């Protein structure tokens, strides 16, 4: 009885913390001034969404996708082409991009999702590189130079603003919704089925779980969400090109973040993004021009750290620390009877 009450209290505590976190996040732009710091916030939130998307295919269902830049680019290029050639608002273009990406994921998935481990990873790498080189040589998508989006000053229709604040709130909403989605999926049957397939696909299938369909769904969701961020990025940076959007390093980074934070968990990607991104940006700013690629060294070290210290990521590390703290607290609290 007492334990049940304790658990309920714990849950209420968690909900309260979440609400508190949300309030802080909503008020953050008022506290954080300066375009540079706001930029860091926006990029961190972007990576949270990208990491959560990867988490579905790589963390839950366990297919190591290293080509998510493809979906990122599909989103950006689709909405950008629609804006530039058809004057279609990115608010619509973003959904079109999402569906295009999901369709591509469906097609690629039907070919590749039967592959396991390294093979799937390599297939996704190959697709990413093919697309990068193809787009670099295709005039229709602007070739290697890409596109500079037409400046529209501040316009809701064109999803462009002078200030960073509207961008912040948009990406914040996307990040919150995505995390909520992952949480819902985690607690639903999906969470159990996906992890089962991840752990032992044959056993799961022997129980009638349709592993292939689960993987397809995860891959398409991942693609859709990643594409949405692609559109956001295009509207934020106002410049897209194969070099900025289709790098293998980007695809790998999108995988590194949830791994460092903790794959297959709801908060892992969030922790990973918060831990990695602001730090690397800060380092890069401090060391100026000398530090070309210093952030990549940092990513590399973060991965090595995770592998050697806590393979389940920061989330697991925090859980363990929490356990130690409560155990210490309990031993202190228990009176000398």
């Amino acid at each position: 009885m007492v334990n049940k009450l304790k658990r309920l209290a714990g849950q209420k505590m968690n909900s309260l913390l979440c609400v508190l976190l949300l309030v802080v996040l909503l008020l953050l732009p008022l506290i954080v001034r300066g375009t540079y710091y706001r930029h860091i916030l926006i990029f961190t939130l972007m990576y949270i969404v990208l990491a959560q998307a990867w988490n579905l295919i790589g963390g839950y269902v366990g297919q190591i996708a290293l080509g998510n830049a493809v979906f990122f680019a599909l989103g950006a290029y689709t909405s950008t082409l629609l804006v530039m050639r058809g004057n279609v608002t990115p608010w619509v273009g973003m959904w079109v991009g999402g569906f295009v990406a999901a369709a591509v994921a469906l097609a690629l998935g039907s070919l590749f999702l039967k592959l396991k481990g390294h093979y799937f990873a390599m297939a996704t790498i190959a697709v990413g590189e093919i697309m990068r080189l193809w787009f670099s040589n295709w005039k229709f998508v602007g070739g290697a130079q890409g596109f500079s989006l037409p400046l529209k000053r501040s316009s809701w229709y064109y999803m462009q603003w002078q200030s960073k604040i509207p961008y912040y709130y948009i990406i914040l909403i996307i990040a919150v919704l995505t995390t909520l989605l992952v949480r819902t999926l985690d607690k639903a049957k999906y969470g159990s089925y996906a992890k089962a397939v991840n752990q032992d696909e044959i056993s799961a299938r022997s129980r009638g779980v349709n592993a292939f369909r689960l993987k397809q769904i995860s891959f398409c969701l991942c693609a859709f969400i990643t594409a949405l961020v692609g559109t956001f990025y295009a509207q934020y940076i106002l410049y897209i090109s194969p070099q900025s959007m289709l790098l293998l390093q980007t695809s790998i980074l999108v995988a590194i973040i949830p791994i460092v934070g903790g794959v297959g968990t709801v908060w892992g990607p969030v922790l990973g993004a918060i831990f990695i991104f602001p730090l690397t940006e800060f380092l890069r700013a401090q060391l100026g021009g000398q530090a070309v690629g210093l952030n990549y060294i940092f990513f590399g070290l973060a991965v090595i750290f995770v592998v050697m210290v806590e393979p389940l990521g920061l989330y697991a590390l925090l859980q363990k620390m929490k356990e130690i703290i409560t155990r210490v607290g309990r031993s202190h609290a228990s009176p000398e009877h």
Partner: protein
Amino acid sequence: MQVLSIENLTKRFGGLTAVDNVSMHVDSGKIVGLIGPNGSGKTTLFNCVTSYYEVDEGKIKLSDKDITGQRMEVVCEKGVYRTFQFPRLFPELSILKNVLLATKHKHEGLIDVLFRAFSADLVNRAKELIEFVELTRLTNKPAGNLSGGQKKLLELACALMKEPQIVLLDEPAGGVNPTLINVLKARILEMNKEGMTFFVIEHNMEVIMSIAERIYVLDHGALIAEGTSEEIQVNEEVLEAYFGK
């Protein structure tokens, strides 16, 4: 009514014929045994029925409907539940979760899987089944902590959760201590009384002879005898297969 009918099944691995033109059937509500020396093709037969292996020749029919070569998960949902000689469970998941994973998936829509958790009904049913196999006090413990015998009992619970047309048991008594074997036997017989059909591979003669109404005997992939347990025990070819001339 024949729940499972295996017609002229042949499975080869390179030059070796593991299952050689075997025909068998299991009638509804019966317990049928499958025995034979090691390497006689029993588990291979099960693997062919459930599409773990591809069939080279022959047909598998479930209640007169052809299921040959259909995907593993499809065969399972259509009503063939199969356990493994070395239990395949999810060691890090709780016993409850393990059983819940075996619910019927056939009628689950996309929205259901993505957004709904296991209903209270399903959870209660799973708990009832766990109680049926006497594992209640371990309900929330990871399945990896179970002993060999307990794992076999858990597999029974999973089988029941699926409400299949037939349960294929691969050596249910293998590696299980004698007390638990009795529990296993009792549970299987109880389930059978409720109408569940079983097809059982077993090396433990005492167990199989006491629960199976009819027994098939395989040797080197071929069917060498079939009959009641009394008939099998005195069958010369069977004795030869096991003990040599």
